[in-house]
């Protein structure tokens, strides 16, 4: 069995981050494109390392250096867990290659362990990138003993085990439940969103508990933060303390416990693996269709309906893009019930919430647009749109329209809740509260398509690689958030009497930029220009 695990893990890891394709591809243009995507990733990694190093240096300057390992281990664990909820189920129970593996004389535990180890390696990279720079900064300034380095390396190696296990188990439960339902993808998407919202609610309850912080506690900031981290994820604090103290025994106990949890999860999942995978692969066909009257639709309407069906057929696509709009509605509702006073008091500088709320909500709504990956999601079906008499403009407009229609109900609910919650004083305050998010959402949808046209990936095997790991998913999501932040900073910097004027100018500028971008990307030669 060990040999099987080794072989399957090798197979799983062979094309991790598309490296095998990059290695053997003879298409020099594609290689260049892949390399440029890798350079972008490298840039993002450098930014992350820079951010973590600065954060760690800041903690050192505040004489809170002892917090660094526990803090970074908690952050890395939470990130691995949250990203894992959307991804783990699909990675473990993916249909791709299931039939071939089942026909081979391979133990199902070996298949499960191979897929667990793939997730482990992928997340080890995240753990390394987040924790390593912090430990390096700590070591550089405080010159700890050899035990720090050994235990620091060990903590990086073991930290992904528990969050991965938790996300795999949640993923397995979601897949297990949805596999019994008719609309499997939609059920999986709904359950994933529900889990994330429950976790967010739980974490918000944790922060509410911290309202009891007293001035005395503030004087002992280190113990307050440790206390909070311990509530969020206790093993991170145990590990962090052991690394700082150079204590081997607690670290080894943690490592043993983490490994035991990981192995136990692999054993549990392998029991249900066959049943869940089979249920997911089984499709129901009734063979009882009788030809009815067919309705004719316009090309745009037909393309848009198809976009919606594509969207709701993929649980990972839905969960990744619907969280932002749902959060926007929940926050609007929370604002209506709690009032603006709570937020005003918690801000470090006095700000008029009504002025800045449109930018905050725009950022939340545009965290991830469907358009940013909608061309890539066509995958092997791209030939259909290419061979039909459809202009790039019709195809891309349908994708933009679908994204706008998807956001519309969330936007309306959010605005209906925000207006009574914020009680705008003037007509213009209310007007811009509605207009700014609408304009930024429109820009984000068009920008998402533009990014995906530049970084399309059509030869994928697993939707996760497109929705969660592609460069267009990351850059597409950043566009609206970045634009909202820039606009908020501009408004913050100007005098209050010019707020309305500048907001109007911002809207006109964004609408103009959107129109120009739309014209450029929907030109008749778009497919040729973007080599699609």
């Amino acid at each position, binding site marked *: 069995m060990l040999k099987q695990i080794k072989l399957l893990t090798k197979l799983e890891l062979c094309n991790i981050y598309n490296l095998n394709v990059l290695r053997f591809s003879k*298409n020099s243009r594609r290689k260049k494109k892949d390399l440029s995507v890798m350079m972008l990733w490298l840039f993002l990694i450098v930014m992350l390392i820079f951010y973590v190093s600065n954060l760690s240096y800041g903690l050192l300057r505040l004489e809170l250096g002892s917090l660094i390992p526990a803090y970074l281990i908690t952050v890395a664990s939470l990130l691995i867990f949250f990203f894992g909820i959307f991804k783990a189920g699909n990675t473990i129970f993916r249909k791709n290659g299931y039939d071939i593996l089942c026909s081979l004389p391979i133990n199902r535990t070996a298949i499960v362990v191979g897929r667990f180890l793939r997730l482990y390696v992928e997340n080890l990279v995240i753990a390394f990138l987040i924790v390593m720079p912090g430990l390096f900064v700590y070591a550089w300034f405080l010159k700890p003993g050899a035990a720090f380095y050994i235990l620091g390396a060990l903590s990086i190696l073991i930290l992904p085990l528990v969050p991965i296990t938790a996300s795999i188990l949640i993923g397995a439960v979601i897949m297990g439940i949805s596999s019994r339902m008719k609309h499997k993808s939609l059920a999986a998407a709904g359950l994933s969103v529900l889990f994330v919202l429950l976790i967010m609610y739980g974490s918000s309850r944790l922060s509410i508990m911290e309202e009891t912080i007293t001035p005395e506690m503030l004087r002992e900031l280190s113990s307050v933060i440790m206390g909070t981290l311990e509530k969020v994820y206790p093993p991170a604090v145990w590990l962090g303390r052991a690394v700082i103290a150079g204590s081997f025994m607690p670290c080894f106990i943690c490592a043993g416990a983490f490994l035991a949890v990981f192995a136990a999860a692999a054993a549990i999942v392998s029991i249900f693996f066959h049943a869940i995978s089979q249920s997911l692969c089984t499709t129901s066909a009734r063979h*009882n269709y009788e*030809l009815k009257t067919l309705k*004719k639709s316009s090309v745009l309407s037909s393309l848009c309906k198809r976009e919606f069906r594509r969207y709701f057929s993929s649980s990972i696509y839905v969960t990744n893009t619907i969280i932002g709009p749902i959060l926007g509605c929940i926050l609007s509702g929370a604002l209506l019930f709690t009032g603006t006073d709570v937020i005003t008091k918690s801000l470090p500088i006095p700000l008029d919430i009504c002025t800045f709320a449109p930018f905050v909500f725009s950022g939340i709504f545009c965290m991830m647009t469907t358009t940013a990956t909608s061309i890539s999601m066509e995958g092997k079906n791209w030939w259909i749109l*290419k*061979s*039909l*008499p459809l202009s790039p403009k019709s195809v891309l407009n349908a994708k933009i329209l679908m994204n706008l229609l998807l956001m519309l109900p969330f936007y309306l609910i959010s605005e209906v809740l925000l207006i009574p919650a914020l009680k705008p004083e003037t007509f213009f305050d209310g007007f811009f509260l509605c207009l700014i998010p609408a304009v930024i959402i429109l820009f984000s949808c068009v920008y998402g398509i533009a990014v995906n046209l530049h970084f399309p990936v059509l030869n994928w095997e697993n939707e996760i690689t497109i929705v969660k790991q592609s460069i267009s998913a990351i850059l597409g999501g950043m566009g609206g958030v970045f634009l909202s932040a820039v606009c908020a900073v501009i408004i913050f910097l100007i005098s209050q009497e010019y707020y309305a004027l500048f907001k109007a100018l911002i809207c006109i500028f964004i609408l103009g930029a959107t129109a120009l971008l739309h014209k450029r990307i929907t030109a008749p030669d778009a497919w040729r220009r973007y080599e699609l």
Partner: protein
Amino acid sequence: MLTIDHLTKHYKGSNKGVTDICLEIEAGDIYAFIGHNGAGKTTTIKCVAGIHDFDSGKILIDGSSIRESPLLCKSRFAYIPDNPDLYEYLTGIQYLNFIADVFNVPARIREELIGRYGNEFEITSSLGDLISTYSHGMKQKLAIISALIHQPKLLILDEPFVGLDPKASVILKNIMREICDGGGAIFFSTHVLDVAERLCNKVAIIKDGSLIASGSMEEILKQGESLESIFMEVVKNA
């Protein structure tokens, strides 16, 4: 109806592709395009269908260039690929309705044609099911119906008989003849040389991206016993 004039297409960073392909497909032709695996059949067909751009040459459909007037050209032909990767998240009828909407087919005509071809290929009862539940052959049948739904004058088919059951193959051959009798034309690639010999009036043989023989089936067959023996001979000597 279809003119391929000195078509050259090479994949960037690779020496694969096609060089200087010239073909003329006229109304009433059933034109077979044969060659070994990797010879360039699919590349040529994808260039004709407007899926791949090409380096040089011209592709004209009814006198219009696929490069300059892609929408006009695409509205005149139907294309079926060698591997029918259809929208698995749609039901068969949703897919057909989508294609009919794109080609602006009136509701009455689409009902009539889906009814006719659905019954002929014995797929009507499955049209309400998701395409993901279809076998390879059923997907191929659905792709064929979707190609016929807007009554194209030109059919471009890449290995159309792969995956079809014997009855469906016979029906497809009859439909191909019917289209040609009505003034249309068929251009298709195949590895089944018997079918090409019996069905087609013209044939072209491609090897390593270049045409090595083309012309009417009668002329080609004069060179040997059967299309199979001629193919082997020509490919060996080229």
